[in-house]
């Protein structure tokens, strides 16, 4: 119940920028649901407008991923569900072509797409395992030559400012990978 109300909030937030309780009422949430949202500590008021609390974000994320997982598991496997696409484009800035490729390739692999993260979004200091690299033959080859073969463990040691590359430690060396390429490498965060 709460999750769905949160989804409504997110949609409004995206459309309006600033959301007040009145907006939620206008969107069709009854007083009971509004009360529940506030009481659960999921939303807090900052000068009349509403914001997500940390817990709220967490709940939202789990909900989304469960939802996405369901859609993938129960999908007939032919087309990419629209909401999966939306999650990856808005959260991870992955273009549709790359996502389709991820999706196609993952069908035959023992991984769930929601357990994986593009390398570019891995926080600095985390260790991750390379699962899948898509993209041009040249880029994939160059990555493999530098040691980023599938199943390799890498540690993200640095992320550059907006739009910049990441530096990963792989096989005792450090490699800088541009944003475009790093968003086409799917990894599983280990620790």
């Amino acid at each position: 119940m709460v999750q769905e109300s949160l989804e409504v909030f997110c949609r409004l937030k995206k459309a309006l920028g600033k959301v007040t309780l009145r907006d939620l009422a206008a969107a069709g949430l009854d007083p009971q649901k509004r009360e529940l949202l506030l009481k659960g500590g999921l939303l807090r008021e900052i000068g009349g407008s509403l914001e997500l609390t940390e817990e709220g974000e967490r709940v939202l994320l789990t909900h989304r991923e469960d939802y996405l997982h369901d859609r993938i598991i129960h999908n007939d496997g032919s087309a990419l569900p629209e909401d999966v696409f939306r999650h990856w484009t808005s959260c991870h800035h992955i273009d549709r072509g790359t996502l389709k490729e991820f999706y196609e390739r993952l069908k035959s692999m023992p991984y769930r797409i929601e357990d994986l993260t593009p390398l570019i979004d891995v926080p600095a200091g985390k260790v991750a395992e390379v699962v899948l690299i898509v993209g041009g033959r040249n880029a994939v080859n160059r990555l493999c030559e530098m040691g980023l073969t599938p199943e390799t463990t890498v540690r993200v040691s640095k992320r550059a400012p907006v739009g910049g590359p990441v530096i990963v430690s792989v096989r005792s060396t450090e490699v800088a990978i541009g944003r475009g390429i790093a968003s086409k490498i799917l990894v599983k965060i280990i620790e």
Partner: protein
Amino acid sequence: MQNDYPCSGVPPRIALVGNPNVGKSSIFNQLTGLNQTVGNWPGKTVELAEGTLVFEGTTIRIVDMPGTYSLSSYSEEELVTRDFLLSSAADVIINVVDATALERNLYLTLQLLEMGLPIILAVNFIDAAYHKGISFDFKSLQESLGVTVIPVDASSGQGMTELMGAAMRQLRSKGGGRPARPKYGKEMEYLIADVAKELRAGNVPLPEGYPIEWISLKLIEGDPEVMRRVKLPPDLLARVSEKTSAVESIHGESANVITASERYSLSHRIAERSLKPKVEARNAVSEWASDLLTHRVYGYLVLAAVLGGTFYLIFQAGGIISGAIDSAFSSVIVYLAAALSFLPPMAVNLLLNGVVFGIGAATSIALPYIATFYIALSIFEDTGYLPRAAFLLDSLMHKIGLHGKAFIPLLLGFGCSVPACMGCRIMETRRERLLLGALVVLIPCSARTIVILGVAGAYLGIGYALLIYFIDILLVLAIGRVLFKALPGESVGLIMEMPPVRMFKPVAVLKRTWLKTKDFVFTALPLIVLGSLAVEAASSLGAMDVIVNSFSPVTVGILGLPVATGVALIFGMLRKELALIMLAAYAGTTDFALIMSPAQMFVFTLVMVIYLPCVATLAALIKEYGARRAALIVTMDMLLALAVGAVASQMLSIIRF
């Protein structure tokens, strides 16, 4: 470079192969000293440095191959290295590896072994590895690979005698003791054997000297170059690709990725066996420095300070040395003029104003500006600063369709356009190289900076000089953006190794500076002397006025400049900073305020900075891109200079500057 085999009279040749940043060039310098020449592999723009060394009474040639991570045929460097090694041009191959990153370095070693080449493994940076907490079991490494392993320390020269001793033993054994091919996973091995069997059964003619298993492996990988050389009959090709697809579907990866994984899992096992890691120790200073240099705020501050400081120092120091050299050459000319008075005046003029003046001009820019620039650059290279700057500037470079590494040739361009053109080779694709080549020639090199400072700086004030610099850099970005959109093809992303931050060795820096400066002088000097001779001949025949006047539609008509500036435009093709001296000589005054209004000075400087790169750069462009593309780049620069000059001239007259 010929592919001669070792026989009496021809000294044997040793090739140094290895990843970039493994100290390969340091070993090369240790072995050959300053006895080196740089040559081109026929038809390719990959330079191979060759040097000689006398060891135990035998003269040996040593070739420093370009640093590569792999021997696939995706870049020209890799292809050249592979062809060179397979053509038996080298009698012994020394594979230099970095002890601190053995696993990654062995990837190349395994590929050399696949080719059945007789290699010697030189393990460098043992000390650094020890400090990192790694110690070695060389015996185990030797047994795992089946090749001789020699620990060396390139910076101190330790281990060089042992290395050469091993090479000599290898030479004397004459190809005996070819190492065994590394064995990969079962499926892959079956596949290789299968394809080799097909090749044998089909009686396919194979290029000589290429092991059949290697060719099979390359066919499985779909290596375009081997596919081209080995002409498989269609039915055989179909069978090979069918078998390959079967293995690909088991692994869920392409054959290339499978073989890369196989190599890495083997190199991982070998490294595990031969390394004895102690406690994980870190080099705190190096890591702290690396962290600072790539920091999202401080990194950029350091970058600005480093670049600003370097340019300031170069031009301060350069100005002093350049002045000293200039005055020395002037007194030489005066002295020679008196001593040679018995010759006809025309010959004296040609000799002095052509040859001596040309040499003087070349040294007075090469030594002070180019050499100091190379010192700075070598320090950046050795400390590992360049890749860090490239990392910081990656997003900016993407705006002009290039990636972070493009920053390096652009930086070189501020010193001299010639090495900058050659530096464009670090880009991965032809498209990137061309795009970058068109941009680096627009960067104000040290000679153009002299013009900017000498005219705009001296007469209009430093603010206007900086404004011209700024306009030029904006132009570079704008042109980059336009070319990026106009040239077909996709932009390539950044994949770049970040070597650890290290302290540089002053001796190594000076040695490399000397070699590079020497290289520059030999390329540029003949062109400059010839050019000076031609102009001197023209002026003593009275042709100068005619030529200068023929430029007037451009100089006066389009740009609104005095007729005399035609001289500067002509000389600017030879050497930009020479143009000012020539203009002064032609106009009969060194006070440019007498011949140009402030607005004209501004336009003049702007045009001088943008139009035609000098002769030496033109030669470099032709060498790198061929005559047609070089002509395209030059035409673009000419048109750009005219357009910018005309617009500036109009705008300045409107605002009554």
